[in-house]
């Protein structure tokens, strides 16, 4: 199994979920995070003074999937998260050794 971690634009979340729905709507967990990469910040202002916010709000989407499903999911996310501008985000894939569904005790791919 793989854990797919995608860090994407906040505004893209709904679109990505739609894309994932089309390929079977896998279970997923999302987290509000902040980050920076190439995109080095955002100018805000407060009471007349501008300043740079270096950490920009992003969404982290985590999907644990079987090895076979992983590529499909990565593709769906990559396409739906794309705008072409700096800040589109990244996808990381990590190995997962075990998965358990608490409700049933099912393990492995059956638990996803």
């Amino acid at each position, binding site marked *: 199994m793989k854990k797919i971690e995608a860090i994407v634009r*906040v*505004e893209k979340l709904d679109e990505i979920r739609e894309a994932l729905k089309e390929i079977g709507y896998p279970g997923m967990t999302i987290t509000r995070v902040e980050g920076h990469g190439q995109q080095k910040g955002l100018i805000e202002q407060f009471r007349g003074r501008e300043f740079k916010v270096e950490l*920009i*709000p992003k969404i982290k989407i985590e999907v644990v999937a079987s090895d076979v499903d992983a590529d499909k999911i990565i593709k769906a996310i990559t396409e739906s998260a794309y705008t072409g501008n700096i*800040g589109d985000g990244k996808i990381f894939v990590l190995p997962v050794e075990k998965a358990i569904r608490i409700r049933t005790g099912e393990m492995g791919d059956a638990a996803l």
Partner: protein
Amino acid sequence: MRVVKIRRGTSAIYALVLLSMILALVPCAMAGDPTGARTLKENPEAPVNYIWILVCGFLVMFMQAGFAMVETGFCRAKNATNLMAKNLMDLVIGSLCFMAVGFAIMMGADMAGLIGTTGWFLYGEYDVSRYLTFFWQLVFCATAASIVSGAVAERLKIPAYLICSAVVSLLIYPIFGHWVWGGGWLSTLPFGMGHLDFAGSGVVHTVGGMVGLAGTIVLGPRFGKFVNGKPRAIPGHSITLAALGVFILWFGWLGFNCGSTFSADQLRIAVIAVNTTLSAAAGAFASLMVIFLKTRKWDVGIALNGVLAGLVAITAPCAWVEAWAAVVIGLVAGVLVVASVYFLESRGVDDPVGAVSVHGTNGLWGLISVGLFADGTYGYYTTGGAHAIGLLYGGGAGQLIAQVIGACTVVLWAFGLGYLLFKAMDAAFGIRVSPEEELQGLDISEHGTPAYPDFYIKNGGGG
């Protein structure tokens, strides 16, 4: 809310408004009573009236805080700064524009029942009673302007909003106000006692609601409001602030309605206070129950709208009806506001905070209700003279007709001008923010200032 109109000796009719403005500036400041000493001598009871009107006016001014809180509470966190800007700036722009032009149009010397023509920039008499009238009218005007922001929330550009506030304060509100309260044609209709609107269900609330309706129609719905044509709820970010706003409005509204006697001698103010409170309560009760019967949940958001619906509806009749009628008016208002919200959404109209249903729809109901429930015990801002009497108290249909005429007029006038205004602005420079900005929230794109930078916000704010 009517005020003692200050008619000057002049009866000249100016051909052009512009001309009149210039001419009005020619004569030196006319003799007034800037210290108030003469006024006091002539009327030793004046202080009671002054402090009553001022305190009630302060309360009306404070309603701005209520509007700001309700609107922001019912919208998303990513637009909270934007709503603060709009609610602040309509008061700011409104004050300055109303001083410059609006007040002259509304309360200046009448021309043909259509428009007032004197007193630009408060020029003319320097007089305490004139300042008093101006203060009262000013806070009312700001209320009308403020209503619009809720309907156009979460997508209208700031410059378009500022222009809209200016036009409402310069023209739309003062001209209609002149017709009803400034001695204009609606007040002299040959039915009943002429069109009656005690504290402004029509003049203030329907005007604001209809301009808001025009705005929301021209803008179109927010991104995500309709999915495949079906309306979706977009929950607001703080029920707490929305509720606080409603409590503030209820509080301020007591000043709004009771102060509209424009005189403390009218002990009828006690009746007005009771009616205002009971109608608000009845409105909340009805809204809450209607939705409870539908969803089995105690929907406090709709109950808050119900309070406001009851308050808007009782605003026109508050001085002319009995307590039981106030309860009935409020109950109807509470049902109406729910029906109106559903109806507008079914027609694809997206009014984020329910401003059109609260102020527009129930403003009209308030006007009509005068024609039904006026009980014949109170007159035209005075205990003397003719007393308003409605259909249910055997007054015949006269008053009702006058009310319906006024109601139709305000819809045509405010919606019409509002629509033209938004369409014109849209053609000129585009009134809606870009889809990216809307998704991100207007706070960052228009103001550079997220409202809650120390908190994690679930919608928008990102890059």
